[in-house]
């Protein structure tokens, strides 16, 4: 299962604050619509079901504590640096490595 497949169920559902300016983040080659002020976790999970694969089993992961404590939501930027998606606000054009894997 892809972590970011168009049309798949999205994890997060926007219920308020939808009037913000739009920005685009890239997950691999795929552009994802997001809003200024989104965290990376919000931007990715409003467009897909998960953030990464677990390193030790088959499971997908999509964050857990959402406040920078549990470290479940690490994603890798295109330059190879690893960041916590729940505490990083998106910037227009941000590129995240797709971890859809084998």
């Amino acid at each position, binding site marked *: *299962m892809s972590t970011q497949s168009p049309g798949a*169920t999205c*994890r*997060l*559902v*926007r*219920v*308020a*604050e*939808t*009037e*913000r*300016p739009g920005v685009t983040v890239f997950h691999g080659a795929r552009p994802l619509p997001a809003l*200024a*002020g*989104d*965290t990376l976790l*919000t931007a990715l999970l*409003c467009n897909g*079901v*998960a*953030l990464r694969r*677990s*390193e*030790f*089993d088959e*499971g*997908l*992961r*999509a*964050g*857990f*504590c*959402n*406040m*920078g*404590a*549990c*470290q*479940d939501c*690490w994603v890798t930027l295109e330059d190879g*640096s*690893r960041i916590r998606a*729940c*505490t990083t*606000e998106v910037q227009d054009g941000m590129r995240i490595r797709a971890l859809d894997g084998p």
Partner: protein
Amino acid sequence: MSERAPAVLIVGAGPAGTRAAETLVAHGVRPVVVDEGLRSGGQIYRQPPEGFSRPASALYGFEARKAEAVHAALAAVRESIDYRPGTLVWNVEGGVAQTLGPEGVGRIAFDSLILATGAMDRVIPFPGWTLPGAFTMGGAQVALKAQGCAIGEPVVFMGTGPLLYLVAYQYAHAGARVAAILDTSSAADALPVLPGLLWGGRTFAKGLWYMTWPRTAGIPVRRGIVPVAAEGEGALEAVRYRDRRGREHRVACTGLGIGYGVKSEVQLAELAGCEMAFDPLAQQWLPEADGDGRARDGAVYLAGDGAGVAGADAAELRGRLAALAWLADHGIAVDRGERARLRAKLRRIMRFRDALERALPVPFHLARALPDETVICRCEVITAGEIRQGRALDPAELNRAKAYTRVGMGRCQGRVCGPAAAQILADARGCDVAEVGRLRGQAPVKPLGIRAGALAAVEDNSRAASI
């Protein structure tokens, strides 16, 4: 000639850190305030990013005025403190805090430390809890409050503690669909502690209102339940639970908020040399301090939920008290009447909190009864069975079990799994949970990129070389 003024470092800018800073500034002291958050308010009064438009009443409900007051207090002293938002203190050692912030790694020398590090959700794992869609209760609240998002459609909230009903209310109020509220505690738990609960006054009344509200909104509330499993193909699709008669039920949901109250973030207190003691009610090792928050005379003070959970109102009082204690300890005159009033208010809240913890008891026994295949440590994917088998090597305490099994070895450093792992190990050994000890706080208290770690090491080396 006057000596250099002592340097005070406050860690955290939630209600406790903010009131501590405000109190110091009012007495002519300029503290450094380091906060992981990009904006002040902590988790409870978390402020959304720029460009969000909901009013405080929509974000904080009954607590809107308190939230605004805490934000205003920090804003008012902004120019009178050295404020460093978006900055993690990842180590405290020998009068120096090591930080990672927007400008990279740094060091802050201090004479005194006021720790207001807050709390995070207390979690009891259960089968399926690592599925995408399961968040902590606090995480679910952050999604709504700071991002305008629901964690699914529909959402189930499960666990116990004041947040259970509060977050469910906030979700329903924001137009999200709440499929059920599943509470592990029962009304029977509250009866014996009713007198204590009455100390809560308005807080208790608000709590009762939040608990009865879902019925009028047609949201099912089930009490005395036992979580069975979260399930779904690759992501959450439903949660199963047993009711108090033992019958199993399934509720379809794509979002699940779980939590059993909150637990203190104590890693920095431990690194700062505080004595740690086991708190039987919270089942957590907490840094020791006197009623005003003095942990190590003149050097370390504790305030807010990081020093034992008592909630946001108490955190404001404890922030003020810790700052007043610091001032008094450093020969600066403080208003004794004010201290007495703050202490009296705090005592009332603590009586209520004690009763509340008993009225909404944390079902630690559920951790002990988990099936072997249940993942306990979500970072390293270590199961309850592996912790129990590790028992064969006879780990006398939790750090040894960590070495044998890797439970708590992952990136969260046991913040999430530690309490449950301690219960499982104690059960396997047939001993009291206090006897298996606690996972030691280690620097860095949160993961650093290798570049940050390397830079800090280079700085340390060049400093050592120049001495």
